[in-house]
Structure formats: structure tokens, C-alpha cells
């Protein structure tokens, strides 16, 4: 897994790529919780994620709940079946706001 944070005028973009699994999801979690602390809008770009297990999803869930509490917009970006299917299985595809591209996400109101 690789990850990076970009700051843009309309929000923070946290991008992940590769596999998010039991080994590295703690790092993903730490980064997400950190960004949620100081951002007003967080775009989590999962476009390049090829595998995500339940520990990765759990990290997203925790960060999203934290964001909600502090009125931070928290948006997922992905078309990757590897991500969408796991979200679906956990019945979370209707819970998260998910956009297909960063452009879509940035133009939508949150």
C-alpha cells in the first residue's frame, strides 16, 4: 500500500493505492484520523486500490464517524470493484458517499 495527502483549496485528498490489508491498514487508519482532525473536506481516493479487506473498511468507518461528529465532509472516490464489492458485502455502499472520480466529487455538494 502507498498513500499520500494533497491539499487543495476545496479539500484534502488522501490517496491510497495497492493492497490495504491487516498488515498496513493501521497506517491507513492513522493517516485518515489525522486528516479528519484538521480538514473540512476529505476526499479519500481509492481508485488505485486493488484489494481492501475488512480492516481497511473498518478504518474508513471509524474515520467517517469521526468526520460526521465534527462536520467534516468525508467522500470516497472509487470505481474499483475490489473496493465496491467489499463495501457492498458490509452493506456500507449506501452509507458512504461514493463518487466515480475526483472531479465528480469536487463538483458535488456535500
Amino acid at each position, binding site marked *: 500500500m502507498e498513500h499520500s495527502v494533497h491539499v487543495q483549496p476545496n479539500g484534502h485528498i488522501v490517496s491510497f493505492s495497492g493492497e490495504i490489508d*491487516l498488515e498496513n*491498514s*493501521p497506517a491507513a*487508519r492513522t493517516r485518515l484520523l489525522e486528516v479528519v482532525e484538521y480538514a473540512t473536506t476529505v476526499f479519500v481516493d481509492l481508485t488505485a486500490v486493488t*484489494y481492501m*479487506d*475488512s*480492516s481497511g*473498511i*473498518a*478504518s474508513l*468507518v*471509524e474515520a467517517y464517524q469521526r468526520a460526521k461528529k465534527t462536520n467534516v465532509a468525508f467522500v470516497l472516490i472509487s470505481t474499483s470493484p*475490489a473496493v465496491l*464489492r*467489499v463495501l*457492498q*458485502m*458490509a*452493506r456500507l455502499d449506501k452509507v458512504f458517499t461514493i463518487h466515480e472520480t475526483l472531479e465528480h466529487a469536487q463538483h458535488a455538494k456535500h
Partner: protein
Amino acid sequence: MIPVIEVKDVVTHYGSRKILNHVNVDIQPGEIMVVMGGSGSGKSTLLRHLIGLERVSAGSIRLLDQDIGHMSHHELTRFYRKLGVAFQGGALFSSMTVGENIMLPLREHTNLDEKTMAIMVRMKLEVVNLAGFEHLMPSELSGGMLKRAAFARAVIMDPALLFCDEPSAGLDPVVSSSLDELILQLRDALNMTIVVVTHELDSAFRIADRITVLDKGEVLTIGSVDQVRASTHTRIQDLLNRRFEETILDPDEYLARLTGESI
């Protein structure tokens, strides 16, 4: 493609009884293999061998391209984090809550944060329709609920390989088919390779990519659902039509069997 599970010419004895007789099975990545066969045909025995609980008398078993017969105890333990196992009558620890039971593999094998583990446990309880039962003790659950909790524990680590021994036996039809659905989703979402022992024909036909039919410790056939259904083999047809094996009765031998005396 290298099979994820490779059973080669496996022979097993319990004492002097031969239980598995030259069994060969290859299972591909992301495949759902259903194992069927009459009671006592060796299904559970095969499963116990696949997960390294018992050693073969002859032949070999490779999982994820490693020979489990040659793994040390330590290697096997490390390996177990990649395997999920839901046993026939899979017992939970009675001294722990349902949630603690399901979390156990995470505690043993990972360094995940408490909060992450708790969310993972609740997600799995949701998908087996046990939401809200995490604080109950196993003794407070019904048989079918225990089975589902055991299944949740088997998949809590999202294992690469999942082994289930009759996961839906005794469940009501609705719950049973939602478990089938979950098995399919686990494969589709996580590319899990799954071996399921089952007697439920409907379930087998719904989830199987291929079916292995065992009879008296031997593989009768391995094939797609359609191939197995179309088989003209009488034992397979007996199994599919739920007919008991017809035994040819030798009166003298039968009498001897009942009286415990040899002829």
C-alpha cells in the same frame, strides 16, 4: 495457474481402517469447491487434513504452494492466519462473549487497534444477521445462531482460504440461503478460495464452481454442477436423489453379523 490447494494421492488410516483412499483434488484460486458424499464417506477427515490438523499416511497436501506436511508447528501457526475454519458443530468458548469469541483470531494474529477490531466484529455480526448479539454468552444463543457466530469467527480475518464443514446444516431455509449468498460475496469481493462440505443439494448447486463427490474415502467424481447432475454413476444418482445405498444381502453373512459369530 498454480492451484491454491493441491491434494495428491492422499491415503489415511485410522488404526487399520483406511479412511481416504488415493484422493486427488486441485482447487484453483477464487474457486468454491463443494465436497459431498454420504455420512462417513470421509468429508470431515479430508477437511481436517487440508488444514493440517491431521497428517496423511501417504501422499501430500499443498496449500498456497507450501507442503503442509513438512511445516513445523511454528510455521503452521503462522500459516493459520491465512485460513478460516468453521467446523461441523464449531464450538465457541463458553467463557467468552460472542463478540470476544469472534475477535479472538484478530487478537492472536494482528496488532490492530481495539476500535478497528470492534468494528470488524460488528460488521461480521451484521452479515451473519446477528447484529446486537456481541455481548451475549454462547449459552444464550440458539443452535443456528451459534453456527452463524462460528462462521463469523472463521471469516473475521478475511482469510485467503476458507474451510466450512456443513455451515448451513440445521439452519432455516432463509438463513441458510443468506449464508450461501455471503459465501459467494466473500469469494467475489475478496477472491477467497472456499471449500464447503455440505449435504444440502440446493446450497451445493447454488454456490459450487465444482463439486467433489466422495464415497467410502474415494473420489467418485469432480466436476461442475452440470457435470455432476448429469453423471450416470449410480452412487452419485443415489446421493442426488437421496437414496440410501442398496446393500446386497448375503443371508449367511447377515446372520453371522447379527449374532457376532463368523460363519
